């Protein structure tokens, strides 16, 4: 154990059951994501497809502790967020396959998963896009005098979008309870952070708007879990924004087209390997093992149950019908 103090602290905060459920959730996300490339290659998923491999802790550390009436928004890299929100994996997979049973009835696809019943207000195909929307969602919370929070995920590349700046500024100005999670996975497609900004400490950027900000290890789900808990409960009391830069990494290419060959243009295999050594799922697994809360057979069991979920999601999606053609003309207006 490298950080015993934090561990003890976390042990108090996070029960065995919770740790195991976080482990399971991250594994479900990983296996689910893996299956999507297979289905893409089979031609059953189309459009753009962005996986979350390596970043699972960013959703697992935060979303499960939220209330059902909280709000979550994120980018096109959104499968993990939907699953963490509790969206049925079958409805997620059906959406990826463009079926009538998808969580957006087949109209949205991979980049536009959505599930308002579970607080998930959607992925967004536009870089920076969810941030102005989160401002408005957060304003609705404050307006109604509620103690909910809105969690808004966005990328390191998105920080260079003007709309993000406008929204950060306004959220601080009005005291709007949005928890901004910067998924700093070091790259925006092939652009390393240092190639998109001269000053790459995002905390200084957030603080320039008067938003409290801190950085977390995006590979350590327990650190995220315990440190965000108090942040979120504070936000419920005080109604103000908060900013967290997550130190994370994208294990795979940006999307399907960004294959290993393509990635050579901008990053080394050894860099990827280094980060994979800190795979958030393995990190948590090892901790659980050390605590005697997870042995090989239990691990196998979880692996099996997750596999079943993913298989069931796929088979459900494949059995589901395409949307009726009339649906083309439905839902244009509210």
């Amino acid at each position, binding site marked *: 154990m490298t950080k015993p103090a934090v561990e003890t602290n976390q042990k108090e905060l996070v029960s065995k059951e919770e740790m195991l459920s976080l482990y399971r959730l991250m594994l479900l996300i990983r296996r689910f994501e893996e299956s999507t490339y297979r289905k893409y290659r089979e031609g059953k998923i189309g459009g753009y497809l962005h996986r979350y491999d390596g970043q699972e802790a960013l959703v697992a550390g935060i979303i499960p502790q939220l209330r059902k009436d909280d709000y979550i928004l994120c980018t096109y890299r959104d499968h993990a967020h939907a699953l963490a929100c509790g969206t049925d994996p079958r409805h997620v997979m059906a959406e990826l396959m463009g079926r009538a049973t998808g969580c957006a009835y087949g109209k949205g696809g991979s980049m536009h998963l959505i599930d308002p019943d579970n607080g998930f207000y959607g992925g967004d195909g536009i870089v920076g896009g969810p941030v102005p929307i989160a401002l*408005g969602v957060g304003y*609705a919370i404050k307006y109604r005098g509620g103690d909910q929070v809105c969690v808004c995920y966005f990328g390191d590349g998105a920080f260079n979008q003007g709309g993000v700046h*406008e929204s950060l500024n306004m959220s601080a100005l009005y005291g709007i309870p949005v928890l901004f999670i910067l998924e700093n996975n070091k790259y925006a497609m092939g652009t390393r952070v240092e190639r998109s900004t001269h000053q790459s400490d995002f905390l200084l950027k957030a603080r320039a708007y008067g938003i409290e900000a801190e950085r977390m290890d995006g590979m350590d789900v327990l650190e995220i879990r315990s440190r965000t808990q108090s942040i979120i409960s504070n936000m419920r009391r005080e109604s103000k924004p908060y900013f967290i830069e997550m130190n994370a990494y994208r294990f795979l290419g940006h999307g399907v087209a960004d294959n290993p060959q393509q990635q050579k243009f901008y990053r080394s295999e050894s860099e990827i390997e280094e980060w994979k050594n800190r795979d958030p799922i393995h990190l948590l697994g090892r901790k659980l093992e050390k605590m005697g809360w997870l042995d090989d057979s239990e691990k196998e069991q979880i692996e099996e149950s997750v596999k079943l979920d993913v298989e069931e999601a796929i088979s459900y999606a494949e059995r589901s019908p395409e949307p009726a053609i009339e649906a083309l003309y439905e839902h*244009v207006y509210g």
Partner: protein
Amino acid sequence: MSVMRYAEALRLAMTEEMERDDRVFICGEEVGQYQGTFRVTEGLLERFGARRVVDTPISETGISGLATGSAMAGLRPIAEFMTWSFALEAMDVLVNHAAKITYMSGGRVKCPAVFRGPAGTGNQLSAQHSQSLEAWYAHIPGFKIAMPATPEDAKGLLKTAIRDDSPVIFMEHAGLYAQRGEVPDDPEFTVPFGLAAIRRTGSDVTLISYSHMVGSCLKAAEVLEKEGVSCEVIDLRTIVPLDTEAITASIRHTHRAVVAQEEWKSVSIVSELASLIYELCFDDLDAPVERVGGPMTPMPYAKNLERAAIPNEKNVIEAIRKVLA
């Protein structure tokens, strides 16, 4: 009925709807403490407080996000653009978010937001300020578009817009704010979307327009009446939805049509109206439809050039003479 200005009618609509429904709020630049750049929101901050009348920074993307996101979460925001030209800063939020979220979500999330403010040309405001882009919004599925020409419609259409579950592009005309007219007092008075108003009946030619241009059509009709020409004047009131029935019914009767707008002529509302009329009324038409629209130039500052660049009743009269020739 009370006589009031167009701007006051808009304020009345907002006041009544804010009284009726606590979910309705206003946001925008200088809408509160400053009392509104064009006084449309005068007194509302004092009446409803800073929670419901939100002064914003000069951040049109942020303002549009504030409206779109809060609408998605169940409020009924009214976002004011100081002028519609500045909405150019917010196109992504408007087009790729507000207009599409209902569709992308398969109807699971709605966006009942009103985006409003002054549009139109004039007053020597020159190239960057003097324009209105209703043609753009009408090209995008998902928006409804209202452009009132009278104080009564200003009130009635704005109330309908606020109650509508779709994002509504609500374009006022700065040149109409001071216009007076009778406005119903009834707080349940609304003007339905998609229903044109026949502002004047006539039998020789149908003039179709909206917003400020309706006045020019009426003036043209008056002038030509003296020459024995009888013009029917249709005020579309909403561009989307469009009252095609009113248009076809009139043309079936007059066999001639002039479509008129203030904005650039190419790839515009009058282009759409003209081609639609041909499609719907080809056999009824005795002459090609005449389009009146602005020349394809940015708006110049100099008074004489601006005058030449903004279509008025003279252009309508010319067009009428052409279709009657």
